[in-house]
């Protein structure tokens, strides 16, 4: 065998030959070289021995036929609970999402109803009270000097009604949502 570079080259080619990873012409070249070179001849024999021993000691082992049954039995036990648990959780989650959507719709319904009721009450309250002197009110508005007594009573009545209705609406919504 020649220098170390050539040695390495032949080492790799010998191993490729052992693995059957060469074509016919390369195989012939390797065998021809091994026949001429004593070192590579010995080497290829050593590699053959190692290869044969390893192939003999490491057969393509396989599991017995009962293996699948054992795994599937295990799968049909605990994992089935797991699978049903997973679908139960999915159903619960979807149910919760639907409940949230219903709750939001209900809240908006009550808000709209409350707003309508408040508007109606304010209108009724305003209608039941003596009409202010529009001309004087306009003058006051223009002068930016509202009648404190009139505006305070009106605003207080409207605010109280709105707050009362809002509380009633919210209570009704909460009670409905809890059902």
């Amino acid at each position: 065998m020649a220098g170390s570079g050539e040695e390495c080259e032949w080492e790799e080619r010998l191993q490729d030959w052992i693995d059957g990873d060469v074509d016919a012409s390369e195989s012939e070249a390797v065998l021809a070289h091994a026949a001429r070179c004593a070192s590579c001849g010995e080497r290829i024999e050593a590699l053959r021995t190692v290869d044969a021993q390893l192939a003999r000691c490491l057969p393509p082992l396989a599991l017995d036929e009962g293996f699948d049954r054992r795994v599937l039995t295990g799968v049909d036990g605990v994992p089935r609970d797991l699978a049903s648990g997973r679908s139960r959780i999915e159903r619960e989650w979807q149910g919760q999402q639907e409940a949230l959507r219903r709750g939001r719709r209900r809240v908006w319904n009550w808000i709209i109803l409350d707003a309508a009721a408040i508007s109606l009450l304010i209108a009724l309250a305003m209608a039941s009270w003596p009409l202010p002197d529009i001309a004087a009110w306009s003058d006051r508005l223009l002068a930016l000097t509202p009648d404190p007594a009139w505006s305070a009573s009106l605003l207080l009545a409207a605010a109280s009604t709105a707050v009362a209705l809002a509380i009633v609406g919210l209570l009704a919504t909460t009670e409905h949502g809890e059902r």
Partner: protein
Amino acid sequence: MAMVVPPQEADADVRLRLQAGDYRAALEMLLARYRDRVFRLAISMLRDRSEAEDVTQEIFMRLWRALPSYSGRASLSTWIYAISRNACLSRIRRRRPQVSLDDPAVLAEPAIAALEARASDDSATQSVLRLLDALPQRYREVVTLFYMEDKSCEQTAAALGIPVGTVKALLHRARRYMIKLVRPSDRGD
């Protein structure tokens, strides 16, 4: 006429089952295709048949639990081998500390010299296994899997998650290492 299925579509039927939520049928198909490969990978890493069988069962139970979360980004084989390697590594970590097989005192045992003994000699088998145990773990896994997978570099590479070129390089180095253990005067690394 039979159709040739490209390698990347080898598990397309299993993917369809998974998309349909039919996890049990998918698992049965995976069992038929991968059980022996996973088992051999486990043997290459654990070096114990009984433990490898045990951990293979554990791996398929893990797969069963993980199937609904399979995203499909990696191929099924890559995903399965990754789970398998992790399970084997966990098993190795759980083991009690053992005497290192790389210890020179272990290598000096005369039994390793029996590599050149006749193939029919049972002590030769034991000797080769001892030699195998003396290899660094990375070499040992590659050698074991390569021979168990009927000398398939591609299958070995897929199972270990490394390139085919790396499998060949490790295999060649491992053989040189083994020959050197038996014949210290031989060339090699």
